């Protein structure tokens, strides 16, 4: 009994008195943290959202940077998904930001307007850094009012993947994928009739709608997608958007389209299992799919409605920001890292390892990448689409700090259509909600 009470008192006092002193790291030094290596180096922190294999490959790039740099040590810290990272940033506000922040394009407006981001343009101008080597349409996505706010790092776009073996089986030409909505309908019908499989699908993620709309060369918001002023109205329910919704509704009703869910994951499994012939995916995942599929995988650009010229694809993926709350020395250190990440060698390595396409044009000539493309010719589709994409507001995606919520609204509208709501009504309702947010 005595022992018991002793233990209790001991634990209680440990808690009460010693804990206050047991904080291991002084958190105010997010940036100047005692580095794991190198005392003289400037230590900076980088928050990112790359998990799984991509996370591992990213760590590798950071390690290589640290090895070759004499002055800078970057510590990459995973912060959960893109939303989790932004959550944290929103909560921290301007108090505890890391030197470097990786974020998805949906949040680019919020971050650009926040008071803790230093525009990338400042560093570029100070040093007269030449950005002409970087893909113009990619830069355009992150440029607001002629200022580049963040440096693109990983770029992907949406493309179509299809099962070549299944195409052969039903007598479709495996070398020419359907390019229009109508062609997809016809091909899907054939597939359904001959094999019972689903013809076409994509995950219910608002990004795909943005991509399909951009490919038609249509705007999502007025004021040039928000690039030339504060948007007042959405254009998603104009003709372009209606065509997408009508098409989905038509195919869904005859059973050649199927909704598998709202995660990137969801259509992949049925595709790999040979139950689905064509689907849209992020180009970042092409390599993995080719590796995993027990059949030959083909890739093709996004489809368009008949009679519309394809314009290309909006850039997805992420970019990196430098924050302004830390010392000049730390900001410079962050800039060093940024420059490293857009070097052709790193971009080639990163693209080859992941399936993102390089943001630096010269990376395409690097042997690391050409070898990967030889082995996985399917990866080239995304690069070709990107290099043909003009640098226009239409192709840069909607610019608004409500971008996340727009997607949620569009996703819900798509789901309504899949469950029988009239496509025009669903899209008009969605547009109304988006308009309310713009007010």
């Amino acid at each position: 009994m005595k022992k018991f009470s002793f233990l209790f008192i001991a634990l209680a006092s440990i808690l009460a008195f010693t804990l206050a002193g047991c904080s291991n790291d002084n958190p105010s030094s997010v940036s100047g943290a005692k580095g794991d290596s190198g005392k003289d180096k400037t230590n900076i922190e980088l928050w990112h959202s790359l998990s799984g294999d991509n996370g591992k490959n990213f760590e590798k790039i950071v390690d290589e940077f640290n090895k070759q740099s004499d002055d800078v040590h970057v510590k990459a810290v995973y912060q959960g998904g893109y939303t989790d990272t932004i959550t944290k940033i929103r909560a921290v506000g301007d108090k505890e930001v890391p030197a470097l922040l990786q974020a998805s394009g949906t949040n680019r407006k919020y971050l650009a307007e926040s008071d803790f981001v230093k525009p990338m343009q400042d560093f570029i101008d100070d040093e007269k850094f030449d950005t002409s080597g970087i893909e113009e349409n990619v830069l355009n996505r992150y440029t607001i009012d002629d200022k580049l706010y963040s440096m693109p790092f990983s770029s992907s776009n949406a493309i179509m993947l299809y099962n070549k073996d299944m195409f052969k089986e039903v007598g479709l030409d495996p070398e020419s994928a359907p390019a229009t909505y109508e062609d997809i309908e016809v091909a899907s019908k054939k597939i359904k009739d001959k094999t019972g499989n689903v013809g076409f699908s994509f995950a219910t993620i608002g990004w795909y709608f943005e991509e399909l709309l951009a490919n038609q060369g249509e705007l999502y918001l007025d004021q040039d997608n928000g690039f030339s002023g504060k948007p007042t109205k959405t254009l998603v329910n104009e003709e372009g958007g209606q065509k997408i919704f009508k098409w989905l509704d038509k195919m869904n009703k005859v059973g050649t389209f199927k909704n598998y869910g709202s995660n990137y994951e969801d259509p992949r499994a049925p595709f790999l299992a040979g139950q689905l012939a064509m689907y849209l995916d992020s180009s970042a995942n092409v390599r993995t799919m080719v590796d995993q599929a027990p059949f030959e995988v083909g890739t093709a650009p996004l489809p368009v409605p008949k009679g519309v010229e394809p314009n290309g694809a909006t850039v997805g993926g992420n970019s990196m920001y430098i924050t302004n709350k830390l010392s000049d020395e730390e900001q410079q250190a962050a800039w060093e890292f940024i420059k490293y990440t857009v070097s052709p060698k790193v971009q080639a390595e990163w693209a080859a390892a992941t399936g993102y396409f390089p943001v630096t044009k010269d990376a395409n000539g690097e042997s690391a990448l050409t070898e990967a493309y030889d082995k996985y010719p399917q990866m080239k589709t995304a690069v070709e689409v990107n290099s043909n994409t003009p640098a226009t507001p239409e192709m840069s995606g909607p610019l608004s700090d409500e971008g996340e919520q727009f997607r949620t609204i569009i996703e819900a509208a798509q789901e309504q259509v899949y469950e029988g709501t009239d496509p025009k009504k669903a899209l008009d309702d969605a547009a109304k909600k988006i308009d309310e947010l713009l007010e």
Partner: protein
Amino acid sequence: MEITNSNEAAAKRLRKKEWKLFGTGMLYLLPAIVFMAVFLFYPIVKTLYFSFFDVTGGGVTERFVGLKNYAKLLSSQEFLQSMKATFLFVLYVVPGEIIISLFLAVIASEKLKGMGFFRTIFSSTLGVSVAAGATVFLFMFHPSLGAINNVLGMVGIGPIEWLTSSNAALISIAITTIWMHIGINFIILLGGLQNIPEEMYESAKIDGAGYYSRLFKITIPLLSPVLFFVLIIAVIGSFQTFGQIDLLTGGGPNNSTNLIVYSIYQQAFSFGHFGFASAQAIVLFVIILIVTILQFRYGERKVHYQ
């Protein structure tokens, strides 16, 4: 005169003693009060405060908007839908988990060989985290790989669109939630059953009461205080469901699983509308408060205290 004096003195002494008792009591409560004040009372007050403002990240209040957030809330279709889904969810989950746990507790309260093993299994879901449990169900509900559809397919049922149809998704979340709550409910109910004195049954047996009449005439009434406790915890727990939604459906399809807590999280963190989210949190708090008070008022009457 003297009497009043001594009375006064006594009263004084009494008061002094009461103050002393109060002081001692507070001394023991002090640690809990400090922690509660900082991490529970302060946040709820702050949330209330936020609900009258436009709030940006870092908790910076941008401008006072009065009741605008609340007005927006009540006129918002999504919120009304979210309320409806929440109540529907509570209606699925609470009876479901209590009936199943009670059934398990009843069959596990028999004195049979090897019962320890079964009791352990029945309690096991208490040791399953939301993250792990929901991940397993995400895989099981998978439209093409999932075990559930595969097994159902073997007996000619399905495939069911567990997570992609708005009719089924809420039920799928409810199934997951019930499964995760069974462990704790089972443990509490089994304990309650074992505390029912043996003599009650023996006298009933002598009277010739059958199994079912014993179950409904003795077991359930005597168990009612425990059942009531379980009910309160279950209602609160299901109102506050979050993790499984985040992992399984993200509130979809078509907002059918966008329960209030998830909507709070989404508004605050994904969309950055902290003030609007705070107003929702306050409304949710009030709803749970009312439901709990109602349960105490009307539910506890039916509880049979020994």
